[in-house]
């Protein structure tokens, strides 16, 4: 039996890898994506264009503006002389932040009344708006504390001493690049497995396969294993690139990483086989793969946290294998977690894998007869 399965695996691999175009599709684009997305997918802000409308040309206000100009986050693109153009600047996206320093700024500072400063932010991208507000607040608070201290003001009773664990510089690349391991592994595995049966159905060779002495389970194994193999290899290449190209620290062990990866690829293979056994054309298979893949990426925590979703959507994510693997891959990379610490993520993937494989076998057998 194993010889037959092996023969089918080799045949499947040949079918995918022999055609130069589909070979290229499996190797080239994922690597290009890894590099481009590794650089592009960043929530970090730098050189945000800002404008300043300083109505109080004094030493103190100029010092405040210098704090902004000196920060790597902001780039002062305009010094306004009147308040008329503030809205136009923001509307046309020439500036994402306009700092308005009131005429009473210095006077209020010296008389110890809260000195008014207005920060106008472009809210079209609310995440950027929040981050810009946060950065601006940090600079303003920093300035205020320093100014108060230099001019004999009272010291605040307490100050914040902030530090980030696991990712001290809060680089979003450390968050996104391990996520790409999960993303691309899922894309490649699902497409290889999902389309393999449909392709044979379309060309009519599937019936030939069914009349061989192989059992449906053997055929399923022969169809599933190549995807598994390609998925694990592809993931290894991306993991290597994450470590050596993007310098993301790999603090945990490879055992924990590959154990999670294997469970993930098995679960995705099971889903791919289910899609494969339900459809009769490649177009339907692709549609099925898209209809599974896109929501599974969005609802995985890849770019936006699951905790922010409404409760019923959070429940929906429980059947998404990528959700669990993302936690594993990030925990192993950044937190140095081991196999035992990740059991809560491992068993749901194993369960999804078992259920989908059984379901695929059942669907397959029903259609084969």
């Amino acid at each position, binding site marked *: 039996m194993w010889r037959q399965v092996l023969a089918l695996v080799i045949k499947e691999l040949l079918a995918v890898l022999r055609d130069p175009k589909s070979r290229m599709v499996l190797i080239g684009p994922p690597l290009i994506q890894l590099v481009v997305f590794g650089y592009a997918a960043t929530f970090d802000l730098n050189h945000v264009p800002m404008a300043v409308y300083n109505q109080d040309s004094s030493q103190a206000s100029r010092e405040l503006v210098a704090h902004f100009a000196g920060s790597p986050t902001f780039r002062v693109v305009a010094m306004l002389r009147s308040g008329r153009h503030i809205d136009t600047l923001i509307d046309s996206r020439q500036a994402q932040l306009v700092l308005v320093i009131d005429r009473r700024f210095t006077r209020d500072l010296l008389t110890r009344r809260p000195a008014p400063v207005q920060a106008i932010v472009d809210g079209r991208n*609310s*995440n950027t708006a*929040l*981050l810009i507000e946060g950065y601006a607040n940090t600079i303003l608070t920093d300035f205020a504390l320093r100014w108060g201290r230099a001019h004999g003001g*009272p*010291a605040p*009773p*307490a100050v*914040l001493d902030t530090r980030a664990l696991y990712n001290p510089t809060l680089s979003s690349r450390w968050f996104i690049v391990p996520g790409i391991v999960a993303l691309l592994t899922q894309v490649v595995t699902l497409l290889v497995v999902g389309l393999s049966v449909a392709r044979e159905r379309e060309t009519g060779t599937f019936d030939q396969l069914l009349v061989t002495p192989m059992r449906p389970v053997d055929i399923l194994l022969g169809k599933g294993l190549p995807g598994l193999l390609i998925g694990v290899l592809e993931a290894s290449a991306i993991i290597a690139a994450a470590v050596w190209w993007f310098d993301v620290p790999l603090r945990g062990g490879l055992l924990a990483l590959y154990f999670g990866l294997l469970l993930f690829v098995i679960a995705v293979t099971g889903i791919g086989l289910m899609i494969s056994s339900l459809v009769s054309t*490649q177009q339907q298979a692709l549609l099925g793969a898209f209809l599974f893949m896109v929501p599974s990426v969005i609802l995985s925590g890849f770019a936006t946290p699951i905790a922010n979703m409404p409760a019923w959507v959070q429940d929906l994510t429980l059947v998404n294998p990528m959700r669990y693997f993302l936690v594993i891959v990030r925990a192993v990379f950044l937190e140095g977690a081991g196999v035992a610490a990740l059991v809560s993520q491992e068993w749901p993937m194993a369960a999804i894998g078992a259920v989908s494989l059984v379901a695929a076998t059942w669907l397959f057998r029903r259609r084969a007869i």
Partner: protein
Amino acid sequence: MNPVALRRLRGLLRKEFLQIWRDPSALAIAFLLPAVLLLIFGYGVSLDARNVPLALVTQRPGALAASFTAAFSHSPYFRPRPFLTIQEAERAMRAHEVQGIVWLPSDFARRAQAGGDAPIGVIVNGVDANDARIVEGYVQQVWATWLTARARRRGEAAPTPLSVQPRVRFNPAVSSRDYLVPGLIAVIMTLTGALLTALVIAREWERGTMEALMVTRVTMREILLAKLIPYFLLGMGGMAASVAIAVLLFGVPLAGSWWVLAGASALFMLAALGMGLLISGFARSQFVAGQIALIVTFLPAFLLSGFVFDIGSMPRAVQWITHVVAARYFVAILQSVFLAGNVWPVILPNALALAVIAAIFLGLARTVFRRRLD
């Protein structure tokens, strides 16, 4: 176009529409795919952190510590959990039970009274850097509010002598859904448009019916037009459905006008369909066409369009790449038309870019198809 050619085109169009009608997968791509995706995305994608689980470690309870921790339970952003030792809190953080720790050490009250500047430890889980930064911002807000309130209660001058008045233009509630949903429409329609033409033509190549068409007297231009017109109409139908979902279901305000939206959508749809045509000109099979469509449309539209990730913060080389991503221009137009209104300095250059991209894709597709004939 002479009357004979027009009649041929009508015949081809009839064939296309019949085909769409009989095989529902094109209809599914045009209507089902965008509707399902928009619903899932619209509910699923949110960057608004609320009820962040936060560990509050008070090693020696007292009046000052209590007034500070009380400020957290009043904040809508946090769901505080009290801890007595930092070790327990760190264990909870490792188990992903809390996102951050606010730690008042045992000498907190003494140092605060002695000369001020008592350190409050803030430790956030930095794995999700964006979330961590937002949480840090919220903690800072709570702290600043607490300082001001305390100073006012005691009749002292505020230790942070600035009063910052933030104003967020266009989206005062800073709701991420209002900005994500318009961007999502662009991402989804990129995928839909490219898939519609790429898969349908790849199928004709696979079945050999394209060659059959080519031995007839129809010209390349007529074949392309006959493919473009029906799928353009389908795509615009899907677009209209998406906008309806955004406005009626998600309540995203539409500040600009309908005709600007329709015009920009038409330009964008031409670009997306052109991209699909171009893909189908290269790909021989539906497998390859689908793969390429996914790789060159959905993922770049998701990551390189400025829909979630700020283009201005990307490395220069990547910023250059974003210029060939049609979704980039459409996202800019959509976010402005929905949230800001008809802002011509944003709409005109981006619409021009869309028109150029559409022309380039359609022109290239025609060349590629013609070359493939020989």
